[in-house]
């Protein structure tokens, strides 16, 4: 009996490793594609030359100072959003939970708008701090409302969407009244990786790392919560600490991601749905596999954003919405 169980564990572990390797390979290929594709496309042979240390200065600048930071930002933001989405879906037991749909990204973006237009914040630390503060406030509200039982499931999602709409209205009013702020954040407010703020990227790296570690640490308590608070307590986990930890992790991850790239929805929604068939409802595995998958998904969206209007480009948030809407509709149909 134990032997079969162990064997089953081993096979599922090897399947997991296989899936992880496959996802990592796809991610690596997408990273290369992201370096090569854009308004000025680079041929693979030219890329090889640059790697070998030859190639023109112009190509060096393009690859290492424009495309590489952009690719790095996509990988970081994609992974952070996937972690946040997995944590939120696991904790709220709501298949539509997503930092974008719950309004957390909008909260972060709103805080940055206020900080930039009213308090003249321009420093990377200031932007990151205000984004995390905004994300934390909305996450706390979501958790409080969800816990009170007053608002669960679809109600919470609807409220999140309504909140996002409000924020977009207020943001457009603020930016119209304050043209200097408008210039600073026109591209950012639609969710864009076109010119990620490198300073913000370095500032938020510890936050993303902290959020990721917390996410892995929280995987087991979240699985225990699925059995109900009483059983979870019986298994030795603290439901309140698990929820508070999830809130902190989500606020750090979403705040950091929004500070880098602006509000990007739907990535956190899609990733858990894509990987659950391979991982089962095991949060630790979902977070592990979700890392390369989330990064790859945002890279795909970013590459599409550069391709569909070539040589111009779309904000990546728009592409993510177009990819994510069918997933919502599928979830709704499956539930109905």
């Amino acid at each position, binding site marked *: 009996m134990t032997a079969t169980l162990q064997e089953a564990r081993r096979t599922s572990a090897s399947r997991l490793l296989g899936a992880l390797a496959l996802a990592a390979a796809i991610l690596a290929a997408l990273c290369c594609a992201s370096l090569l594709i854009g308004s000025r496309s680079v041929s693979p042979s030219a890329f090889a030359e640059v790697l070998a240390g030859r190639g023109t200065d112009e190509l060096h600048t393009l690859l290492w100072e424009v495309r590489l930071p952009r690719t790095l930002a996509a990988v970081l933001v994609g992974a952070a959003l996937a972690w946040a989405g997995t944590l939120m879906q696991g904790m709220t037991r709501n298949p*539509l939970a997503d930092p974008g749909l719950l309004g957390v990204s909008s909260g972060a973006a709103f805080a940055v708008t206020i900080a930039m237009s009213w308090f003249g914040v321009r420093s990377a630390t200031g932007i990151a701090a205000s984004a995390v503060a905004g994300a934390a406030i909305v996450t706390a509200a979501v958790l409080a*409302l969800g816990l009170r039982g*007053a*608002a669960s499931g*679809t*109600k919470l*999602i*609807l*409220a999140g*969407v*309504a*909140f996002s*709409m*409000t*924020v*977009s*209205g*207020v943001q*457009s*009013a603020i930016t*119209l*009244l304050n043209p200097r702020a408008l210039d600073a954040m026109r591209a950012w407010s*639609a969710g864009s990786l076109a010119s990620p703020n490198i300073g913000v990227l370095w500032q938020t790296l510890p936050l993303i790392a902290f959020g990721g570690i917390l996410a892995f640490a929280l995987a087991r308590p979240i699985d225990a919560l699925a059995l109900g608070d009483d059983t979870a307590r019986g298994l030795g986990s603290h439901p309140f600490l698990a929820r508070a930890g999830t809130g902190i992790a989500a606020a750090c991850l979403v705040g950091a991601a929004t500070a880098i790239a602006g509000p990007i*929805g*739907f990535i956190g929604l899609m990733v858990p749905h894509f990987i659950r068939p391979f991982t089962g409802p095991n949060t630790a595995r979902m977070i592990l596999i979700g890392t390369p998958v989330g990064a790859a998904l945002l890279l795909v969206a970013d590459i599409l954003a550069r391709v*569909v*209007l070539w040589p*111009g480009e*779309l*904000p990546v948030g*728009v*592409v993510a*919405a*177009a990819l*994510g*809407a*069918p997933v*919502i*509709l599928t979830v*709704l*149909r499956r*539930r*109905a």
Partner: protein
Amino acid sequence: MTRTSHPQSSPPVAPTQHDALPSPPGARWRWAAGVALLCAVLLAALAAGDLALSPSEVWAALTGTANDFTQTVVLAWRLPRALAAIAFGAALGAAGSIFQTLTRNPLGSPDIIGFNTGAYTGVLLALIIIPAPGFAATATAALLGGLAAAALVLLFSSRSGVGGNTFVLAGIAISAALGALNTWLVYKTDTATATASSVWAAGTLDNTRWELLQPVLGALAVIAVATALLVPKLRIIELGDDLAHALGLRVSATRLLLVGCAVALTAVTTAAAGPIMFVALAAPHLARATLPRTHPTLAAALTGALLLSIADWIAAHAFAPTQIPVGAVTVSLGGVYLTLTILFRKR
């Protein structure tokens, strides 16, 4: 308790203009207060601006006894915008009331279920295909786009019905997808089209002039008459399909006509002023809370006119000299209202 006699609990008699329902005492005063408030907002809209006028000066201009300059300012510049706010607000409020009654869903209003986004897609396509479309072409495109979006939403929520939150979520998903399509279209077109469409997309009454307003008001008047004729039947449908059948009403045909009227009201307004969110959603709720419930659609039209007039006044004057689009005001105020409604609605 004076306000318990709403249509659901009343005997199944078609309410007509001379109402068969017992009007609660004070009903007339509530209506009168609503109309008086609307007149006050209208006066304020005519009086405020760079040239601040006193109420007596406005009155003189309206009756034709003021000097030429004041006449021009009030009648040619400010009156069209104020009238547009009232007419569009009333149209949106009435349409929202019809949609919410037919879907039996307090969130089932055209702005929530993707109609506005679809109408924008239609207008964008019209701007791209036809060089300089007139109002008729824009309105038709908005109508077709809105209908297509609504049809998609209905298709995706067919299994769960239109009464629940799934319907609203399907609308949100379709809106997100269409919004992405719209952004792509705006980026794809030339600068002139993009500028024209982005002014429209904000939802604004800034540029309302008589010559543009006349065809819109004409179209709205025709649809309003048709709606007024059909609305008494809506009260019968409200009693339930079976009872309505038993009372001799052709339920499906009537429902289709009513949807047609509501869609046309929204589409004409959207084509003229751009997508103005949340008036259609909030006006029926506000009407139920403040006005007698004997004529819900009329009451929603009145509160809609009030809401949009006040929002437009804020858009034009609260941040003077900068004008912000009225769409931004309604989204900001209505969004707060919607968030709180969803969270604290008792189920």
